[in-house]
């Protein structure tokens, strides 16, 4: 495995076998203190038990079988070498490793990688190597080390973010902050590197919320900033709302189907296949090709909430979903996007 040799030659390897660059970072749903406690208890048992003991709400986020369903769209053969950019706790890294030859998981948060390392050990997965690095500063691999598959799952919209992020104390909260770069320039620069690190037949799997997800028009808050309508409004207006409400510019840019296709074409991808995900790309119930009919569409919004109660908001959402997708076939308003970019 020449990619492994390359990593050995370029990065230091710390005690638990994780390669590290000299760039540290932090982006996690957990605070540093919570991560420390959870990692501390890894010594007493396996990773899943530690998670259930300290952060049981994350079990579904990390281990749900639904999360991996999109990988089959890639039509994998089993001999692929892959990179999972922003792999966090391995929600896709582990399922990808079951389907392919080798996976390099990259994330800026060492704590997430340490948890994932323990998880790999527990589950007997031996074809994954982990690297702590800033995704925006990934090196360009030598030509013979370039990979077959790149996974960018729920990551592109966070690329413009800077500094340590403890999501619990950051999401929807007021933090005065300025940024050094423009969101789309940062995202394009990242995608160009992803493109360069693919071999000639390489494929990108990009999953992201649709900027014009129909729910955004119905008063559901933007999942990245926790503000109303910022995703669908013109960027300048969204910026102004974010500055007033959160003290920082609106930088977690998501895109429409058309914009994602343009973004990938602009960053070097020769062909792009688009898919709609219902109810979202994280826990998809159905994934439908954007250029096919909606015959296989199935309603994804239940009239009952998480507590099993029927709510007016949900009834309204279900009716809106039915009219938009069953009757009007309004594909551009699908909740999430999976794009397969071919090099």
């Amino acid at each position, binding site marked *: 495995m020449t990619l492994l040799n390359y990593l050995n030659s370029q990065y230091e390897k710390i005690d638990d076998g994780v390669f590290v660059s000299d760039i540290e970072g932090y982006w996690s749903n957990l605070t540093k203190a919570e991560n420390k406690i959870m990692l501390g208890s890894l010594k007493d048992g396996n990773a899943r038990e530690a998670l259930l003991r300290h952060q049981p709400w994350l079990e579904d986020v990390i281990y749900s*079988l639904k999360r991996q369903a999109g990988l*089959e769209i890639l039509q994998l053969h089993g001999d692929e070498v892959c990179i999972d950019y922003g792999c966090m706790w391995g929600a896709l890294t582990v399922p990808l490793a*079951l389907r392919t030859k080798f996976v390099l998981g990259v994330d800026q948060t060492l704590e997430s990688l340490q948890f994932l390392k323990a998880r790999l050990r527990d589950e007997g997965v031996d074809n994954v190597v982990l690297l702590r690095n800033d995704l925006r500063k990934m090196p360009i691999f030598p030509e013979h080390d370039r990979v077959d598959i790149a996974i960018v799952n729920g990551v592109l919209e966070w690329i413009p973010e800077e500094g340590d992020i403890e999501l619990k104390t950051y999401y929807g909260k007021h933090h005065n902050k300025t940024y050094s770069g423009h969101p789309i320039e940062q995202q394009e620069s990242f995608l160009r590197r992803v493109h360069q690190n693919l071999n000639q037949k390489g494929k990108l799997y990009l999953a992201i919320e649709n900027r014009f997800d129909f729910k955004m028009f119905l008063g559901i808050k933007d999942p990245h900033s926790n503000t109303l309508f910022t995703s669908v409004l013109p960027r300048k207006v969204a910026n102004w709302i974010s500055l007033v409400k959160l003290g920082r510019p609106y930088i977690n840019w998501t895109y429409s189907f058309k914009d994602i296709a343009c973004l990938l074409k602009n960053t070097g991808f020769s062909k792009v296949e688009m898919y709609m995900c219902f109810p979202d790309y994280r826990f998809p119930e*159905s994934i439908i*090709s954007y250029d096919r009919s909606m015959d296989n569409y199935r309603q994804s919004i239940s009239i009952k909430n998480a507590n099993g109660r029927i709510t007016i908001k949900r009834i309204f959402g279900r009716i809106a979903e039915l009219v938009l997708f069953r009757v009007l076939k309004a594909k551009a308003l699908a909740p999430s996007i999976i794009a397969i970019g071919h090099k």
Partner: protein
Amino acid sequence: MKIELLRNCSHGSEIATYLVSNRRPLKIIKVASTINGILDLKSEIVGWNWYQEIRYAAMETPICKVLKENKNYLKIEIDYIEGRHGDYRKGLIYAENVIKQVIGHYSAIWPVSQNGMAPLHGDFSLENIIINDNGVNIFDWEHFTLDAAPWGFDPIYLLFEGLWFSFERKKRLNKKEIKIVSQCIQLLERKHLSKNFADHPLNFLISFMHDNKHLWRTQVNKFPVPRFTQEQVCFIDKTITRLRQS
């Protein structure tokens, strides 16, 4: 060629189901990466092989094939069957002809062993049946087990599932629909249905499911028929007996 996700671990299943198409549907792909999911897919392979032997004997290539298998992952491919899906939504009366066709198909091909047992499909729902020019085609064999249930279990399940959905929609039991169930049970009695089963069909069926939960592994709770109350079970069984006697 495109792959689309049709179902993702729904109703307690640990399997993701995909459609492969190239303008026209070509294949169904099923994927599992857990012990129970893999066991279900292995049952599906055995089920398809068994059904192909008795239903599509002339076909030379297997309908169901393994695409990839390792310790924690199994991916299978099944030929797509074109045709009309069965549908309960308009009630048992509307589906009567299809149901009688399905019972004819079952009676014609389903073997019975000396002790009255038969292969179990385990999810013999109208949704898992396609009708086309070649007749009735059954799919979704994830719960298949050889000689695991009394002969007639699957079609009787199909009848009561239809009755359940009508009851759910109308909030009352319809005598015309119970009459259709009774007529179908009489058709099955002419073949190998045991007297015990025919005398108290719903009670017998629910008791069997209760005592043999292992046959459905993690999914036994997805089936609606056991949700009939004891009172409803008695009423339905008594009405069927009365109709059979008259």
